[in-house]
């Protein structure tokens, strides 16, 4: 099977940020776990994210041992796996959903490796625009990083609050689409407050890269989104949306809309 050229898909993320920039708006990046609570409701969740005003959707590929995730995303992954979700299942879901906004696959490395050498081109064919891998830090595995970097997908890299300045530049140089800045130490999950060091970390990162900066981990409320949106180019909301998805698409729509309004304020 010949795969069609997918050279434009990664640019859709860039185009989205360019458009937002012209309007002086911030990106709302929404994470949900594929296949949670089940495939049918996962489709409705994706629709609700689009309708609610998400700019980019991060679609989580469930993994049995998500070491970077807190209890909410762990449970959603477990639930999706119990319903039989796989990497191929995630791509099938994506093909059915055909979201109008760019989709970034959010995964651990092992399911991608198991999906084989054509995993990334197949993802692009299914409509994905980017890929983010939680457990392949810059320099960890040059051959596989090159594979990820050379695919049709934008390769989104993560920066942590512990990352030194020189390494931030290195990370940004090896990534595309945007840089995902982890707001605080720890795993994913709802937090009451954002880290006090965040403005300083964003500033340090800003000085090393021209890529848009999106901040995630612990952002759950419109108030948090608004305050982080003042500092960054976008905010990522995950666990709160996953909890909403547990209740149903109406909750997802409601939360997404309120996040959108807060960001656009």
């Amino acid at each position, binding site marked *: 099977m010949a795969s069609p050229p997918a050279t434009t898909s990664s640019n859709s993320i860039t185009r989205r940020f360019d458009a937002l920039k012209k309007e002086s708006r911030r990106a709302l990046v929404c994470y949900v776990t594929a296949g949670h609570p089940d495939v049918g409701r996962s489709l409705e969740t994706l629709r609700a994210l689009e309708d609610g005003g998400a700019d980019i959707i991060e679609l989580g590929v469930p*993994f*049995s*041992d*998500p*070491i*970077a995730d*807190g*209890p909410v995303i*762990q449970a959603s992954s*477990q639930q999706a*796996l119990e319903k039989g979700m*796989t*990497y*191929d299942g995630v791509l099938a879901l994506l093909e059915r959903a055909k979201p109008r906004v760019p989709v970034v696959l959010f995964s*651990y*490395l*092992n*399911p*991608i*490796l*198991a*999906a084989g050498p054509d995993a990334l081109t197949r993802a692009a064919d299914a409509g994905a625009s980017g890929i983010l891998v*939680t*457990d*392949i*830090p*810059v320099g*960890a*595995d040059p051959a596989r990083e090159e594979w990820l970097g050379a695919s049709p997908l934008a390769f989104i890299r*993560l*920066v*942590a*609050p*512990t*990352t*030194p300045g020189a*390494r931030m530049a290195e*990370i940004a140089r090896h990534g595309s689409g945007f840089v995902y800045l*982890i707001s605080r*130490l*720890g*795993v994913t999950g709802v937090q009451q407050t954002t880290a006090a060091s965040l403005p300083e970390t964003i500033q340090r990162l800003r000085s090393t890269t021209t890529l848009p900066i999106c901040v995630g981990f612990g952002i759950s409320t419109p108030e948090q989104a608004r305050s982080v949106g003042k500092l960054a180019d976008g905010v990522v909301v995950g666990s709160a949306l996953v909890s909403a998805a547990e209740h149903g698409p109406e909750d997802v729509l409601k939360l997404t809309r309120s996040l959108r309004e807060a960001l656009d304020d």
Partner: protein
Amino acid sequence: MATETHHRFGAFGGQYVPETLIPALDELDAAFAQAIRDPEFQRELDRLLKEYVGRPSPLSTAPRLSQAVGCDVYLKREDLNHTGAHKINSALAQALLAQRMGKRRIIAETGAGQHGVATATVCARFGLDCTVYMGEEDMRRQELNVYRMRLMGAKVVPVLSGTRTLKDATSEAIRDWVTNVNDSYYIIGSVVGPAPYPRMVRDFQSVIGREAKAQMLETAGRAPSSVVACVGGGSNAMGIFHAFVPDLAVELVGVEAAGRGLDSGEHSASLQRGVPGVLHGSLSYLLQDESGQVHPAHSISAGLDYPGVGPEHSYLKETGRALYVSVTDDEAVEGLGMLGRLEGIIPALETSHAVAWVVKEKERWNKGDAVLICISGRGDKDLAQITEMGLLPA
């Protein structure tokens, strides 16, 4: 043939972790490199290994077991260490390292509880704050060790996610470390995890093989023909293998847990039935399904009940330097009873796998062979479990 590099053993190993941990691993790497070059660190470690752990551990002859299997069998007695297993060798060294690094809060994961006990012990000795993650299922199987840890002041946190065993306890310990990375030191219990852990834990455990090599010459006047150890994550095996790896005449055998049988789907034989994959920070043989999800392991022994294995074992397998075999739950229990009856030594269920394989394979041994078994731990912790299962002779 690719060899050992800073982060890898051939293609295996690496640092597949969230970005947050990279600076902490760099810091650990530097502190470890500095410590092992510091004669003062080595002197202090040697002193404590002698006066607190009770090293060197003896090498015992095993006359009745030797007779039963038809060759000379020698036992490296890690069961006689303080706390009853080899785990304290590395826990002690890492606690010293943590103190050098100014970290006063210690995190550990444990399966059978032996590493948790060893960590709780050294934390008590040095006055360090200790949190141990343990799967709820393992807490039930190894209740005695939970009491021991708590008695020494450690906080034991039950892990309720996933399979509620060692795999999930390890994930939870990593999550704690990501959250508290600035003031906490993670004492990993085996030769697993991201670099530099597999190499560091091996180096700290390699005292087993160094001693055994000298003791064999002294006691038997020769090197062993085979060295046999059980493999879960594989720290006692790497510990006893390491000194012998360059001696190509010495056969190295790692015994995995075949659980209810290699074809039952319920085992922990990662090296024999797994394929390379990434779990807990390193690339190594892994029990997983075709879509890359980790397949739950099974073993009667909580310490071997792990779907991954240390990356250096994957390397020794691929290069053919070590042979990996397995015995079932039932055979392991038989091995435990046999060493008790024949030598008056009750080994841990983990260790019993190594004993059981030597017994099971007795037709492969010739009269002149000298088989060295690593008795990695004592079996007291397992007696309640095997009594409950009705596996003790009346």
